């Protein structure tokens, strides 16, 4: 049976698990991008790289990466962004939950439609954080705040090319065609 005969979901299930190193270093790389000295409007519109990578692995490696990793990554982001401890964690956990619920559905689509699904996920995470901060008395930071989830979703396809292909290549190289 050739990989092309399988449904997208079956192809995702049949592939070999991604190596722990790839998962770890992809999250680390996303974190390094996030802690670049962003400021002003750039900061508002900064894509949430860590959320993107965590959600990617929650979609493709559901057995190893889930809400626990999302929670831990969120705490790290709270500390580095000097926000109230727990709000990134909250948003990441909710986003991961949405991905876990819709996982089978998302995987049946191509990258374009997946990007639209991701837009919903990233908007959910951003809205959670916005609501929390508004509840705590902050002012609305400006419309550029909503560029961030849009940019994050737009990075879905590049993230796939970067992260998914190494995992697939392992399968092609290792298994007889």
């Amino acid at each position, binding site marked *: 049976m050739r990989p092309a005969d399988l449904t997208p979901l079956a192809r995702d299930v049949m592939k070999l698990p991604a190596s722990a190193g790839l998962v770890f270093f992809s999250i680390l790389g996303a974190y390094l991008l996030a802690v670049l000295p962003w400021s002003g409007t750039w900061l508002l519109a900064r894509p949430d790289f860590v959320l993107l990578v965590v959600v990617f692995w929650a979609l493709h490696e559901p057995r190893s990466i889930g*809400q626990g990793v999302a929670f831990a990554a969120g705490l790290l982001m709270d500390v*580095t962004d000097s*926000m109230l401890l727990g709000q990134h964690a909250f948003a990441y956990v909710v986003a991961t939950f949405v991905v876990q619920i819709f996982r089978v559905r998302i995987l049946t689509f191509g990258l374009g439609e997946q990007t639209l699904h991701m837009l919903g996920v990233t908007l959910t995470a951003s809205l959670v954080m916005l609501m929390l901060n508004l509840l705590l008395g902050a002012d609305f930071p400006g419309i550029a705040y909503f560029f961030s989830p849009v940019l994050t979703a737009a990075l879905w396809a590049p993230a796939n090319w970067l992260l998914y292909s190494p995992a697939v290549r392992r399968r092609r190289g290792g298994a007889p065609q």
Partner: protein
Amino acid sequence: MIREPPAFFHRGPSPLARVTFFTLAAIALMIADHRFHALETVRLSLSVLAHPLEQLAAAPGAMMGRVADYFASQDRLLRENRELKVKVLEQSTEAQEARLLKSEESHLLGMTQAKYASNGVIAEVLYTARNPFTRKIVVDKGLTNSIQAGMPAIDGTGVVGQVTSVGTFTSEVTLVTEKDQSVPVMIVRNGLRAIAVGSGKDGSIDIPFMPVSADVQNGDMFVTSGIDGTYPPGLIVAEVTSVQKNAAYVFAKISAKPAAGVDYHRYVMLLPLPLPSAAPPESKADESPRKGGRERTRARRQGP
């Protein structure tokens, strides 16, 4: 009798159970952090972990800056040097006068004990805090340089803000433009006391609760009054840019522009907190110094 089917694949709790658990954990964390400030040690230890990574991310930019510094033109350096020399000459007379005034003042007030333990610490601004909801900067001095929460931060022209959170190697300075960040001030021209409160917008400070009849004009300079025991008196805070007096309201609407380059400085000076033994002079006790803003009470709680 109904028996559960055997589990072929161990999957653990359902996603819904997990999300409920983690949501409750996150909410508990937020309450603990917001209400009780109970998690400073957690934050501190996580920030120690994150510090090398942040430095790694900042390394390319810092290297570029160093290369640019190295190739700075001779001409520009010479010009800067000349300007600075002129400035030093101009300020030296003022400094001598100030020294004389200070000694007279100390005689008059009978201040036999030193009010401050040490001089200020100069800190380099590393970056703007990556939090779009607040106005903070991160500087490169922390617990290792005996920085305390509550220390005022100034630059060459005025008050920048106040240290609100101290890490091991870095600390956060909340700018005076941050919402609800308040500084007790007075007008230089007539000694009228007020509270300057950040508006949450860049480059603007509000002066709330001033009666319509108050003597405030455009261009008035606000300096710290020193009655709070945190900011030393006489530091320039802001200049009044607009005064709207409408008889329909009880208070005038006064906005001011911060004197310090709040958004674009590279070095700030962190001033020491007054020693606890140095009590404020008796005559000012009846003026009931207002403690405005959350940050101040927080800083006070963490103080010695």
